[in-house]
């Protein structure tokens, strides 16, 4: 078919760093565009008024005091898992095992609550729960790291497979501890005695989780940007050879970082099981181990920016759920809108990093 060779119509080249206002202008334009496309999709598919749909999304996220607290709680958990995977990703260690590390931390918490509840003082139980959950997560993250450091195994597949092992372990123990027999559900653990439940601050159910994650965010920011270990992580991520050349023990950094990464995931499991849900199921992490990867990447691994990116994702999902409730639409419709918005936001990063130049070809006849 092609009789004449043509040069490419578009040329993609790397941009030099954009001034911040320029970058944010591109991002703002992307969000505006996304909203316009969503409006078209909404009207075309459902016949609903798009402005009303956007208002409903806001109402779903902030409509009442309770909704705002739920938003804060969801944000805290997602942010916690995102903070956990960040050091690993910064080191170019693709830890997609966050889901399993959270689950195993939650399982350790649940085990303490069930086996030790009411047998030892509550402060001691909570202390043991904290240690057990962090240790469990750290072990789950540490195993792939040790194999990577020793035998250079593929960490992507390894951490992914550890998710399935964790899920099956949880499924097994759910059957062991199920109430009533055969139900395949544990239900709320220690509902009458509240043994092992993390304390509630005043009348605010979710405040403790939010505070813990807020402190964690600041610590992680300083760890990554100001500490020697954080610098080592960055160097290993940029180039392992350079790291070796300057005398960094790469294997040690990998294992140490993954212990931290897994440990924080385990902590997220503690906050879920001990702090809010007080039960363990195979779906308690709810895919957040994977969503966290997106949160971390969107924020370019800056813990402070991750507050906003995780807020964005939680806001979208809460809004989507409200849309499906108010308009009687399937939940998938909200997900479609979320998908469109994310597509534009992620897409805008491309235009910030690269320049498109449209090449003009003088058309030659024949």
């Amino acid at each position, binding site marked *: 078919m092609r009789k004449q060779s043509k040069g490419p119509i578009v040329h993609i080249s790397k941009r030099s760093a954009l001034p911040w206002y320029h970058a944010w202008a591109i991002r703002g334009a992307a969000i505006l565009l996304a909203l316009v496309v969503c409006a078209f999709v909404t009207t075309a598919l459902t016949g609903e008024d798009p402005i009303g749909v956007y208002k409903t999304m806001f109402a779903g996220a902030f409509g*009442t005091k*309770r909704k705002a607290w739920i938003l804060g709680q969801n944000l805290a958990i997602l942010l916690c898992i995102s903070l956990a995977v960040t050091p690993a990703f910064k080191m170019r260690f693709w830890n997609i095992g966050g889901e399993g590390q959270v689950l195993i931390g939650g399982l350790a918490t649940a085990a303490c609550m069930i086996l030790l509840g009411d047998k030892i003082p509550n402060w001691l139980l909570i202390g043991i729960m904290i240690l057990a959950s962090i240790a469990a997560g750290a072990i789950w993250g540490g195993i792939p790291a040790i194999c990577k450091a020793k035998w250079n195994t593929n960490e*992507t597949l390894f951490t992914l497979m550890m998710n399935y092992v964790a899920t099956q372990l949880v499924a097994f123990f759910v059957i062991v501890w199920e109430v009533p*027999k055969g*139900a*395949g559900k544990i239900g709320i653990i220690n509902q009458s005695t509240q043994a092992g439940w993390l304390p509630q601050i005043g009348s605010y159910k979710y405040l403790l989780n939010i505070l813990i994650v807020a402190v964690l965010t600041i610590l992680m920011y300083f760890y990554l940007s100001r500490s020697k270990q954080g610098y080592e992580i960055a160097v290993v991520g940029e180039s392992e050879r350079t790291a070796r050349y300057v005398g960094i023990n790469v294997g040690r950094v990998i294992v140490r970082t993954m212990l931290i990464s897994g440990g924080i995931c385990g902590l997220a499991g503690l906050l879920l099981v001990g702090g809010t849900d007080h039960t363990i199921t*195979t779906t308690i992490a709810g895919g957040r181990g994977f969503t966290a990867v997106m949160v971390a990447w969107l924020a370019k691994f800056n813990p402070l920016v991750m507050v906003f990116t995780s807020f964005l994702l939680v806001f979208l999902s809460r809004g989507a759920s409200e849309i499906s409730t108010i308009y009687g639409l399937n939940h998938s419709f909200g997900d479609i809108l979320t998908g469109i918005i994310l597509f534009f936001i992620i897409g805008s990063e491309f235009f910030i990093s690269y320049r498109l130049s449209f090449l003009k070809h003088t058309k030659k006849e024949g």
Partner: protein
Amino acid sequence: MKKILSLALVLVMVLSLAACGGKTAAPAETSAAAAPAAEAPATEAPTAEAPAADVKLGFIFLHDENSTYDLNFMNGAKEACAALGLTEDQYIFRTNIPEGQECYDAACELADAGCNIIFADSFGHEDYMIQAAQEFPEVQFCHATGTKAHTQGLSNYHNAFAAIYEGRYLAGVVAGLKLNEMIEAGQFTAEEAKMGYVGAFTYAEVVSGYTSFYLGAKSVCPTVTMDVTFTGSWYDETAEKEGANKLIASGAKLISQHADSMGAPTACETAGVPNVSYNGSTVAACPNTFLVSSRINWAPYYEYVVNCVKNGEAIAADWTGTIATGSVVLTDINEQAAAAGTADKVAEVKADIESGKIHVFDTTTFTVEGKALDSYLADVDTDPNYTPDTEVIENGYFNESVKRSAPYFDLKIDGITLLDTAF
């Protein structure tokens, strides 16, 4: 660039895995009803004299209408709302609410939104509904399939179920007649009459279901035996299909199931083995093998609760729907597959159950380890040690769904073989 591309690929793979994983793991609902192609609910004449102006209903569903389990509840809810003359702003549906803190949050949000009756449909919602009920004493919380209302001591928390074992028994009669027909046709001897059953968990609800089904079949085909296999999931199409195929290969002449996918019915259609379905007709997919199906209709319960609240009456802590209340229904019998004269026999047995002439778990019709049962303590009050606490053999039969609405029949009777009990 190559690195970025490969990373992008990995991410796509992971995220799609996550999405798929979520979907297959999600429908782990614990309970009875599912309606593979649930037949359109029969619209009843409105029972409310005047539109109920002062009620607002909130419904919490584990999944959305793509789950046959939740669809059955949604149909019931819509039917009840229409019958009660409720306007659209008098009920709110919350779909895709997991069995965790989200359920508590959703219940509280519904209460905040002015709902004075809140329903939840999945077993795992129970503890979170109780938590919300403690916080909103003026709101009524009604939970289908739960077990704790009668021991919790909350005046605004209630359980409901249906005596679905009656429907299973009737479906069993249909199965027994079909076996008789096949025996008479010389396809196998009376001693070879064996049925297969695909169950989800070894939960009392499932045990009660397959036992009543077996007793129904045995009432017309005395030599019948049954093998039961469990999948460990309420929805696992592959496992259910494999389970059915395994049972057929080991000589089962007829299959029934208690799990929510089309796995067992389609396996039967492929193998040409008659199938008794659950919670909705599967005749469209299985025209040659589908016999009949039983299901729970939730509309009568919803209407009962709303009328109680309107009239200022107390709602029962445990409410058990029956054939008489319209809560237990059989689909149309597939004349093409079922034995001749089935409809007449079913009508006769149904009338006998309603009049109390037949009791499904009549202790003269079954034995446990060779002995007739004259006493049995069941675990009616749920506790982590499964402590037996309540005498349930009274007046010569096992009183199922009387001491509480959710089933508690968990005996292994003679004639039924459990192939695996891992779940």
